[in-house]
């Protein structure tokens, strides 16, 4: 007897297994007993003997049961794997058959998941990791906040204030301070390069409990007035400057023209919140020796470590007390400010953190919209294959199996999209960081690491599940028998499916509207931020530094001759909007001058200090700095006219509360210098962002005073600023070929980092909004197109019965717009509810900004109408006879 084919019974339960074993053993015993009886033994004795001969029945039973159960488990497992593998192969094949659908779906998933992953990797670096210092929770930033609303935000400390706070405080174990600067480094070979430096007080590294990678950290002794020039460098700079060779530690590098010995290398990633290549000890002894002057120079950022067990509030009160004393002792310098602590993370990250959270929220919303789209698409696919599935069901495939197959397709799309998304996110973060290493604040680099990968995997799985649910749901409710009987596409699959589709499309539109409104507000806010916060517009500006030295330029007349010619020629060049020049460009610093104001009593011991930047030509217009009052310099302000100057808004509020136009001042150490008349007030220039307060600045007319002869030229261009470099060089050569023109760069490059990240964030947010709108539109179009195709017969009948084409179009349009309307209403409601979430990040724009709230619905309706029209028009082209005959 060969035995039947291997035919798998349905799974055996434990009870079944036990019963079979019992039966098998019972059979054996019965056979043996029967044989014994045949040999003449009595019935009962035969049974007993058979039992005895058998051996330990119970343990046999148990052993066999265990074996069978284990075998059963393995078979079930194998079967499951096999069916999953089958589903997988099948899904791959069916996806390859419809490359348009698969391609679009995968592309959508890739884009959306890629965006989410990229944002998350930034969020992880910025928000989700502890600071890389010892006991980071004890660290706070110490800054000055305004008393009685004198200024907004925070300002840095001045050296004498820092010393006083440090000496008199009780709540901290210590306070250290730092400042940043851009220095030049002259390597052994090649041109001078720029390096970012951090100047830190001697106790900084000890305070942070930072340990070096090699060598030593900076110590208080390095910050003494007679200490030799030493510095500590970053890991990255170590590779660049010393080739990563530990034996070369101790060499000197030429920084800013001085030989500096490198005594240590910090660990990779160690920063104070901004990328620095080199850390110098800060010697404050000079500043502290002249407190009268330096108490008003605020440029030190403090970092303090709280005593264990001390809260930020306690420290705040402690500092406030000291601040009150300082205000009383030095009213001119300190009456308007008091030091305050804030958690170091908050300080380092600033508003970037909340912006990032919003960005992540936006990215997730877009993901939901994309899921809805995919669900709809998959639904259509599932319905198209109704017949297919009905046949399969008839052949014995359970409903569960069919659902699983559809699900596998969605999961496959999601997982492939997820894998590609990781590549995309990786490329995106690399590109971002190459643009600007400081685009993302905080000490950790943005990287796609294990947790980010896990995040992407989770999102991808979620996407697969969400977009697979709809078709699974639809299939489970289908009447498959009906599908077999009915021909071709037929109706769109029943009421349940209709409802599901409708819900999906409306949901999509609602989400898109919410997202668009939030984004619209943010975009407008960013634009306002971009302009106002800086105080000037750095794009489309070319700059260059000129060097006028020697006997040729020892008179004002000669200097004026040169610059008048150069600036004049540049002004006439096509493509130039405005051109001017100044002692220093924004972020290049400034000299200071104390001044006496005519018409009021000046405290000789405490003269107001202003930054001093001589300008000429159309400098302010070239930079995009607005004129707030009075006038700018004209041709009439030459050496024969009275000396004039312009001040900035901060100077106006600080020193001329009652008005500045027409006031006269004297600058310089003695009271007998020439008088300068203030003729105008310009807007403040916040080149460094919130961390540097704007100094009250005086802009004298270079033509009249020409303090320093070498100016930086700024040219605002219509097109690409770099394109005007030849023209600039030509103009300078034409005026004097011996004058060196160097450091030709765009103002953006000069001013640098914070712009890149803001712009990037703006681009991202706009990108998301655009993506959301596009996805929602595609969703609506897709569903309507499918429905129209399904109702061809109906339209054919209508047209045949005399309906006009217009009425058919109207039908389709009405349905589409009704969905859009409901979605819009829901989206607006959600946006209203979520208004407060966004309000925190807005600047210069109210949450109820009418342009956004009216503009977004308008755009959405316009776009949806367009998306509806195409299928609507197609519906009218249905040939009634053909439609009725078809299928």
């Amino acid at each position, binding site marked *: 007897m060969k*035995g039947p084919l291997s035919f798998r019974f349905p799974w055996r339960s434990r009870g079944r297994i036990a019963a079979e*074993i019992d039966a098998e053993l019972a059979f054996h015993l019965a056979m043996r007993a029967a044989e014994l009886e045949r040999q003449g033994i009595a019935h009962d004795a035969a049974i007993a003997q058979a039992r005895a001969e058998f051996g330990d029945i119970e343990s046999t039973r148990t052993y066999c049961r265990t*074996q069978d159960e284990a075998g059963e488990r393995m078979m079930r497992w194998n079967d499951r794997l096999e069916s999953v593998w089958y589903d997988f192969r099948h899904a791959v094949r069916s996806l390859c058959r419809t490359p348009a659908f698969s391609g679009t779906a995968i592309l959508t998933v890739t884009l959306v998941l890629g965006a989410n992953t990229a944002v998350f990797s930034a969020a992880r670096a910025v928000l989700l990791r502890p600071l890389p210092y010892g006991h980071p929770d004890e660290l706070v930033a110490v800054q000055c906040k305004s008393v009685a609303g004198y200024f907004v935000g925070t300002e840095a400390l001045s050296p004498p204030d820092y010393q006083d706070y440090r000496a008199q405080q009780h709540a901290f174990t210590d306070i250290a301070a730092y400042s940043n600067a851009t220095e030049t480094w002259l390597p052994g070979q090649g041109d001078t390069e720029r390096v970012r430096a951090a100047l830190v007080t001697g106790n900084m590294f000890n305070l942070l409990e930072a340990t070096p990678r090699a060598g030593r950290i900076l110590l208080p002794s390095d910050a003494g007035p007679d200490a030799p020039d030493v510095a500590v460098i970053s890991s990255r700079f170590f590779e660049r400057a010393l080739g990563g060779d530990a034996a070369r530690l101790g060499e000197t590098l030429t920084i800013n023209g001085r030989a500096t010995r490198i005594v240590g290398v910090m660990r990779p990633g160690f920063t104070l919140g901004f990328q620095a290549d080199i850390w110098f000890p800060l010697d404050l002894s000079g500043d502290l020796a002249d407190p009268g002057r330096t108490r008003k120079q605020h440029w030190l950022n403090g970092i303090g470590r709280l005593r264990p067990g001390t809260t930020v509030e306690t420290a705040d009160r402690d500092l406030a007390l000291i601040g009150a004393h300082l205000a009383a002792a030095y009213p001119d310098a300190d009456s308007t400010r008091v030091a305050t602590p804030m958690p170091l993370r908050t300080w380092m990250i600033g508003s970037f953190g909340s912006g990032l959270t919003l960005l992540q929220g936006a990215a997730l919303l877009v993901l939901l919209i994309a899921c809805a789209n995919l669900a709809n698409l998959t639904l259509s696919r599932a319905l198209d294959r109704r017949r297919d599935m009905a046949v399969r069901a008839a052949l014995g495939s359970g409903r569960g199996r069919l659902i699983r197959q559809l699900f596998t397709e969605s999961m496959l799309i999601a997982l492939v999209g997820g894998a590609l998304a990781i590549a995309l996110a990786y490329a995106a973060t690399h590109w971002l960081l190459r643009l600007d290493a400081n685009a993302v604040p905080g000490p950790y680099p943005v990287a796609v690491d294990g947790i980010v990968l896990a995040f992407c995997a989770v999102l991808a799985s979620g996407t697969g599940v969400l977009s697979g649910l709809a078709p699974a749901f639809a299939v489970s409710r289908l009447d498959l028998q009906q599908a077999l009987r009915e021909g071709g596409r037929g109706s769109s699959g029943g009421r349940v499916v209709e409802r599901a589709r409708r819900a999906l499309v409306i949901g999509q539109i609602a989400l898109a509207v919410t997202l668009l409104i939030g984004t619209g507000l943010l975009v407008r806010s960013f634009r306002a931020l971009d302009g106002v916060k800086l105080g000037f517009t750095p794009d489309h500006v070319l700059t260059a530094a000129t060097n006028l030295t020697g006997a040729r330029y020892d008179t004002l007349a000669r200097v004026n001759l040169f610059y008048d010619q150069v600036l004049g020629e540049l002004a006439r060049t096509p493509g130039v909007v405005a051109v001017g020049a100044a002692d220093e460009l924004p972020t290049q610093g400034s000299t200071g001058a104390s001044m006496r104001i005519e018409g009021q009593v000046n405290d000789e011991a405490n003269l107001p200090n202003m930054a001093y930047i001589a300008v000429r030509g159309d400098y302010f217009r070239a930079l995009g700095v607005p004129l707030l009052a009075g006038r700018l310099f004209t041709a009439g302000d030459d050496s024969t006219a009275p000396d004039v100057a312009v001040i900035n808004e901060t100077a106006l509020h600080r020193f001329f509360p009652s008005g500045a136009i027409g006031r006269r001042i004297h600058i310089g150490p003695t009271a007998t210098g020439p008088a300068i008349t203030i003729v105008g007030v310009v807007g403040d220039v916040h080149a460094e962002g919130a961390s540097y307060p704007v100094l009250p600045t005086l802009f004298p007319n270079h033509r009249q005073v020409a303090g320093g002869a070498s100016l930086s030229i700024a040219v605002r261009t219509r097109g690409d600023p770099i394109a005007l470099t030849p023209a600039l060089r030509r103009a300078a050569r034409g005026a004097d070929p011996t004058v060196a023109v160097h450091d030709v760069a765009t103002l953006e490059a000069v001013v640098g980092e914070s712009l890149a990240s803001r712009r990037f964030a703006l681009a991202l947010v706009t990108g998301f909004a655009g993506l959301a709108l596009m996805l929602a539109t595609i969703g609506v179009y897709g569903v309507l197109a499918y429905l129209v195709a399904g109702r061809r017969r109906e339209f054919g009948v209508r047209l045949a019965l005399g309906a006009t084409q217009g009425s058919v179009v109207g039908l389709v349009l009405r349905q589409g717009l009704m969905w859009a309307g409901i979605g819009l209403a829901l989206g607006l409601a959600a946006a209203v509810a979520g208004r407060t979430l966004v309000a925190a990040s807005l600047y210069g724009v109210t949450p109820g900004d009418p342009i956004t709230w009216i503009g977004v619905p308008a755009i959405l309706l316009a776009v949806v109408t367009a998306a509806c029209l195409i299928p609507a028009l197609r519906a009218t082209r249905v040939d009634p006879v053909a439609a009725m005959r078809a299928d």
Partner: protein
Amino acid sequence: MSRTPPGMLQGTVDLLVLRALAWNAMHGYEISRWLEARSDGVLMVDGAALYPALHRLERRAWVASWWGISENNRRAKFYRLTRTGTAHLRASTTAWHDYAHAVAQVLAPR
């Protein structure tokens, strides 16, 4: 009181069962009868050794089972050798012969 020769390793019982099934597909009782007859009454494998062996072998997929009707019209569980079982039988038989030969050599006088 067991009839299986004492100290017979379970590997040996497995081998014997496989050999029996190579002869023909049988149910458990038939196997024990066949072994007894084949070894002229020396090898009497009792149920407590036989059935664990059969279920073990089935789990390893060296034998396959099904329920059929026995010669006296009763429901019985039949076993047959699978392809992998046949291969394993061949390999094990060779190993067993080598082993037996080696033991005999050791035990031989001189």
